[in-house]
Structures are given as C-alpha cells and as structure tokens.
C-alpha cells in the first residue's frame, strides 16, 4: 500500500530549492546589497528544512489533520485563470475595451449564465464606468495596441 506524500513535504522541498537558487544569485552582489537578502534567505531555507521534516513526519503518520491540499475542484479555477490570461494578452493586441467586453461576455458564457439582458447591461455598464472614471477623470492612458 502506497502512502501519498504530504503537501508540506513538497512545499518544504520547493522552499529549500528556492532558497538555494536565490542565495546563489546573491554571490554577485556587493556586500552591502547582499547582507539583508542573505540573512532572510538563510532564515527562509531554515524554515523550508523544518517544514520538509514536518511534512515527512506527517507522511509517515499518514496525518492530514485538515491541512492537506485539495485540488479536486481546481479544474474550473485553472480554466478561468487561462481566460484571464487570454484577456490580458488581448488587451495588448486587440485593445482594452474590446478585450474587456469579450472577457466579461466570455466569462458569463463560461458560467452558463443565460440572462442576455443582464449580460449586456453588465458589459456596457463596466465599460462606461471605466471610461468615465479612469480615462476621462483620472487620465489613465490605456495601452496602445495593434488595432486601436
């Protein structure tokens, strides 16, 4: 029977690797610039080692105790995050307002929301709000794109 490795073990291992990587980055720094980061990285590495050992202990005891990571419901979050990434990429190439309208509408379709009037009102309301507050009042210059 195999035991699943406790999440803390993975986190501890990642933190140790991260600490080593960051510490190596400090070798090229002047002494004054490196002092504080090296101190903090050392402390982080120590915490990582402690967490790794605690994770191994929890794995041996098969002790979840409510702090095991549960990614079973992460599918939709990951998809939505990819939608957000697409939106931000779209801002750079298609334009802010087009991307925003497409993102809001696309998100609502993703959630299978079928009230099209509410969808249109939300899209129009958000675009007008952002235009009048951020662009006109606050003078925010939106990114230049290929299209607009």
């Amino acid at each position, binding site marked *: 029977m195999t035991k699943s490795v406790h*999440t803390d073990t993975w*986190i501890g291992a990642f*933190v140790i690797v991260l600490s080593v990587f*960051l510490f190596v*980055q*400090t070798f090229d*720094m*002047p002494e*004054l*610039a490196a*002092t*504080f*980061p090296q101190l*903090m*990285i050392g*402390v*982080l590495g120590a*915490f*990582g080692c*402690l*967490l790794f050992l*605690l994770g191994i202990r929890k794995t041996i005891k098969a002790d979840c105790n409510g*702090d095991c*990571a*549960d*990614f079973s*419901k*992460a599918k*939709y*979050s990951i998809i*939505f*995050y990819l939608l*957000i*990434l697409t*939106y*931000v990429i779209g*801002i*750079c190439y298609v334009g802010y307002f087009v991307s*925003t309208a497409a*993102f*809001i509408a696309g*998100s*609502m379709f993703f*959630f*299978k*929301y079928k009230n099209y009037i*509410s969808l249109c009102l*939300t899209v129009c309301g*958000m675009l007008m709000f*952002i235009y009048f*507050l*951020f662009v006109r*009042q*606050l003078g*925010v*210059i*939106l*990114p230049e794109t290929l299209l607009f």
Partner: protein
Amino acid sequence: MIQEIIVNLCTLEVAVAMIVAILGGMLIGALPGLSATMGVALLIPLTYSMTPSAALIMLTVLYTSAIYGGSFTAILIHTPGTASSAATAMDGYQLTLKGQGLRALGIATVSSMFGGTVSAVMLMFIAPQLAKLSLMFGPPEYFLISLFGLTVIGSLASGNMLKGLMAGVLGLIISTCGTHIYTGYYRFTFNITLLQDGIRSVVAMIGLFSLSQVLIQVEDYVHATKKRFENSDLLLKGRRLPSWDEIKFLFPNMIRSSIIGVLVGILPGAGGDIGSWVSYNEAKRFSKNKEEFGKGSIEGICASEAANNAVTGGALIPLLTLGVPGSSTTAVVLGALLIHGLTPGHTLFATNGTIVYTMMAAFLIGNILMGFVGLLISKRIVRMCNIPTCILSPVIVVLATIGAYSIAMNIFDVCVMLFFGFLGYLMKKTKIPAAPLVLGMLLGETAELGYTQSITIAKGRPLFEVFIGRPICIILMIMIILAIVSPFIADYYTKRRAWKK
C-alpha cells in the same frame, strides 16, 4: 480667532468641498488600485481657484474618506480597496459569508469615524508636542519598529505559525527585488528591466487578495449563477449601527487602536497599512476571544479601521509642525500647502493660524460626517455581495486589472498581479496565509533601510550596542520580546488552567 474659524467654516465653498471629498474619497478608496494619494493628487488642480482653507479641507477630508472607503470592498468582496484595509478584509469578509456584512460595515464605519475623530482632536490640541516625539526616531528605532510590526506575523498565521513566518520572510525577500538604494545594484531582476523598480506591494496585494479569492469562488462552479443569499433580507441581518453593548465592548479597543494609529502616523514613512496591522495584533493580544480572529471577529475589524483612520490625523502632525510628511498622501498635501502659499513648520501656526485651525476643525467635522454618510449608504452597498459569482468574478477581475494598470500605466504591473493572484490561490489551497507575505513586503524596505543605516551608525561596533544606548530602542526591544514570548506564555497558562479543571 474662534469667530474667524466659524465664519470660514460656514461657507458654501467649504460645504461643497467637504461633500465632494467625502463621496469622492469613499469611491476612490473602494476601488482596488486607486489610493488616497492618487485621489489627493488628482484634486490638487481643482483647488487652484479655491481659498486655502477650502482647498486644504477638501484634500484632508478626502484622505480620511478614502482610507475608510477601502473597507467597503474589503468587507464585502475580500478585495481591499487600499493597503490599509487588508487587515479588515480578513475578518470583515468572514462576517459577510455569515450574512453579517451590514453589521461588519457598521462596525467599520463607527470605528473609522472614532479613529479619525480622535486623531483630529489630537491634531488640534497636542500636535507640537507629538511632533517632538517623531524627531526622536532615527534609523535604529525604525528598524526595531519594523521588527515589532513583523511580530504581527505570528498572530496572522493563527494555527500555521511556521507557514506564516515562512510567508513573512518570503515577503521580506520579495521587497528586496529591484535597485538597491545604496549601491544601485539590481537585485533579483533576472535581467528584466521592468523589475528594476521593484515589485509594488499594492499590485501584489490586489493579486493575493482579490484575484486569488475570485479563483477560489470559481471552484463552486455549479452554483456560480445563483445568488449567495437566496433570501436577500439575510444580507440586511444585523444592525447597521452597532448596539450600545457592542460599542461598550469595543470602546477600549477603539481607544487603543486610535492611539496606535496616531503614533504610527506621526512616524514618516509608516502608513495606515502598518498602523492597522499593529493594532490588529494588539487587539488580538488583549482579546478574550483570540480564536475568533480571522474567522469574523468584530474586534479585528474595529482595531484595523480605527487605526488606519487615526493614521490620517497623525500623519498631518509632522507635516504641519515640521514640514515633514507623515505618509505618501501627506507628501502630496505638502505640495498643495506650498501652492497656496503656506509654508509648513513652527511658523505656520503663527502666520496662518486661522487657516490651519479651520482645516483642523473641518477635518474633525469631516470625520464625523463621513461616518454618518457611510451608515446611510451601507444598506445600498451591502447588496453588492449578493451578486452571483458569474457576474461578480469578471467584474472584480476587470477592476483589479485596470486598478493594477493605472498605478504606473504599465501592463507589466498587470502581469505581476496575475502572478501573485495564482500564487495566492496556491497559498490558499496549501493553507499558507497570504497576509504575512503582504506584511513582509510592506515592512521590508523600512526594515532593510533601518538595518543598513544602523550598521553605518555602529561603525564596526556590534549592532546591539547601538540599540542599548537609545531609550526608545530599549522600550521597543522589550516590546518585541514580549510580543514573541506572550503567545507561548498565554498558551502555557491556558493549558495549565485546562489541566487543573
């Protein structure tokens, strides 16, 4: 002079300035990415044609209203509008999930009003004395203040002490990314030019708090099109105005948090965010219901909001008396003072006393009015949290994106926000608290600067010798030791009492 002050206050110009400042400030504060500093900077051109009194009143009242406005979205949708409201989001949102959003808003409103009023009173009556205190703080004191602020991490971690400390230290490391102030060396930039300015803590905060929360909410995909509370009357559960018993219960907390806020505000560079975290920690230390913190504690909301509004008056003290801004927002207000021909410092009160005291009196009135307006509109605002996830999630993402972008009009900040959003999501899933990471980022710069300057002052001597020779440092070191040790002592006595029973 009192007659002149009353005459100055009772003008249409001042009334309009105050209304614009209160409503505009709340809106600016509520929107993530917009800050009080931005709001004040935007209003300065509008003040050119105004009298100095009205101009200063509008700017200072907007400052305090924006800090208060950050609590709306912090409580209702776990998206702090300003960095100062991050502590409020922890408990405020938990109360909203229990259908007590209106109650949380009411407590935040009353606490903000109280904190702002206390700081206004202290500004009016003991500003010069308090300003002398700020002159006694040097680099060693700033370093120890940062360390004391970091002891808050222990209480923020609640049950995951090791992970909380790890997140805090990671935040400190992230704060070192960018150009080193003394040597000009680019640290941890990985040849990315845009990282030379460092990582803005507000951008990281928007990602860690609001974007990660959106991703968590999306997990409940099946119910995304449904309202969170089918019976929307549940949203209006609880009193808008805290009951007399609640006010009596919270009163010591409000007083303590307000004093902490004023003292933190006096220190240049220490802003509302630090004040709210420190007073949150102290409220937890003094509370008899420590286990409720992080799960919807009204004491936590009260402490955070009272302190962050008290900082506003405190930050004006060194500005007016010494010409040294107590926060980034007051640095902008300094510009407004100079534009209107007022030179801050000890002569300001002698040469333009009427204008200054009019501003202080209006600041006091503005804090009280802000509370009444907040209570009046809270029932309308609280309905926001019953919007289904399918509408609220994309709206929050859009606001977070434009908010992160508008800070420096740089799409790179949006990318940073996305990174921290995903990191925040992973942290939530693996039970690593995000609040200590934010705190580490906020305090990192001050801690490193104080540490480096203290080493320079030491001139080869051990650092401890520098601290021992300064009375304020000794007091701070005792406070740090007590802050670290007290949870363990309290835990020991609790277990001992349980064993005896």
